[in-house]
């Protein structure tokens, strides 16, 4: 019961942290909240056929018309200008692209990436318990491996859903067979296959061994999927390559910690349930005798 309490507390804290991160994403993070976003060039994405697809968000071209404006701002800028002739020539600025809708899709980053990284970690945890089971043959490690795989699958499905939403918003297509998406999809299939294998084996000992071995093989895909965007040309953004502003990094880290807590809490609760079930089986057997 003590573990269950810890898990519930963790779940609560994790939930609060992810919620906080959610609000931080909208109110303190760099790419600002509601309203419109002005960019120097339209956000485009080139698909495989070479067609340029603009973002799903409609945008208008807004040319800055500050023609020797008498406004305080413009004159202030002009006085800095060394030429002194704050004129229309210098401020025929490049057209700006104003997005009529908020730069909304970026916000999913604070959910999508923590969930994805948690899914990798939990999958590796499952493989670790798989190895532990194969070497020690203790049943608890098999249960741990299975529960970790379940938790990882939940995270993978969440990542897929948020990822597909973002892909539609940002690339204007639901799915693209590019390296990260493909390897991640394969990883999901492997995790589904893990449960197919489990359900299809009848002998308990054998099922545990097969599942442990397959968890190890399936987990090989986790590092591949993680590093593939860094190795191959890919449309999928790479998070830590270009660095992040602190105001972005902070909600990200908060969300990441929260997500790991939630993951751990789910794992502990499921483990607790599993132990209770085993105890129930023992009691049932005793009653039958």
């Amino acid at each position, binding site marked *: 019961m003590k573990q269950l309490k810890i898990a519930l507390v963790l779940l609560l804290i994790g939930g609060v942290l992810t919620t906080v991160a959610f609000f931080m994403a909208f109110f303190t993070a760099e790419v600002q909240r509601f309203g419109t976003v002005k960019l120097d060039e339209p956000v485009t994405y080139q698909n495989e056929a070479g067609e340029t697809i603009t973002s799903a968000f409609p945008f208008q071209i807004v040319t800055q018309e500050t023609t020797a404006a008498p406004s305080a701002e413009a004159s202030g800028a002009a006085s800095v200008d060394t030429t002194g002739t704050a004129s229309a020539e210098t401020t025929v600025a490049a057209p700006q692209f104003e997005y009529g809708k908020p730069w909304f899709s970026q916000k999913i980053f604070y959910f999508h990436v923590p969930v994805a990284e948690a899914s990798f970690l939990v999958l590796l945890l499952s493989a670790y318990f798989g190895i532990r089971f194969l070497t020690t043959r203790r049943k608890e490690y098999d249960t741990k491996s299975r529960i970790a795989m379940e938790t990882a699958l939940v995270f993978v499905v969440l990542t897929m859903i948020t990822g597909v939403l973002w892909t539609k918003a940002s690339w204007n297509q639901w799915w693209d067979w590019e390296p990260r998406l493909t*390897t991640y999809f*394969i990883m999901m299939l492997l995790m589904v*296959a893990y449960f*197919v*294998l489990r359900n299809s084996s009848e*002998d308990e000992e*054998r099922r545990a061994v097969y599942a442990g*071995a397959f968890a*190890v*093989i399936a987990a090989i895909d986790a590092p591949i999927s993680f590093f593939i965007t860094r190795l191959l040309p890919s449309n999928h953004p790479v998070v830590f390559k270009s660095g992040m502003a602190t105001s972005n990094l902070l909600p990200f880290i908060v969300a990441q910690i929260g997500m790991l807590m939630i993951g751990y809490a789910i794992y502990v609760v499921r483990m607790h349930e599993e132990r209770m079930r085993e105890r129930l089986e023992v009691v049932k057997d005793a009653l039958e005798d």
Partner: protein
Amino acid sequence: MSTAAEKPRSLSWRQFRAILRKDIVMELRTKEMVTSMGIYALLTMVVYQVALSQASEAFDPREIASGLLWLAFIFTSMLGLNRSLVHEKDQGCLEALLLSPVDRPVIFFAKAIGNLVFLGIVEMLTIPIFAFLFLQGSGYAGDWWMIPLVLAAGSLGIAGVGTLLATMSVNTKGKDFVLAVLMVPLMYPLLLAAVSATTTAVLGGADATTPFWQAMALIAGYDGIMLVASYGLYEFVVGA
């Protein structure tokens, strides 16, 4: 065979040869695996004909030829792998092998090489038929050794990982279905690289060398990692 006074190193070599010979002799007598795999591959070609029947005149079959070929190989190999292990299990041969003082890795390598040989035979039968049916009049632009190299490397991966997976799936309720569910996603990187290498070999061109060797490096990496993993895990799996 020779006397037992030989070096222990050659002992596992002889065990390896004995298991491999057993598989080949059984195949020579029954001709079951190669026949079923061959006919299956042939039927796949018929289905391909249907799939391509609505393609336009300008369509160049060479662009998708290697994809179709590897598709045939992967499905045929699943059939063969399943058969190869079902025999072992149904006739109690695997249990006898496990009782005899043979190292588990020896069993793995012997079974994998046996499956590789049968897969190779089927591939060598399939490719001329495929070329005859779909590629008449199209040229082959690469060097002659390119396709055999890809085939060997790709089949090695299929046979190695497939032997491990088939050993698992043969003991489950839904034998071949489970094998397919386990094998197809696991084979994905290998298939992708093999198709890419074969296509560059077929289409050729001045800048085909670099992508070809990139794909070959991917296949080699996959084979390396997956064979080591299969080799390490086989000991646990076969004894369960």
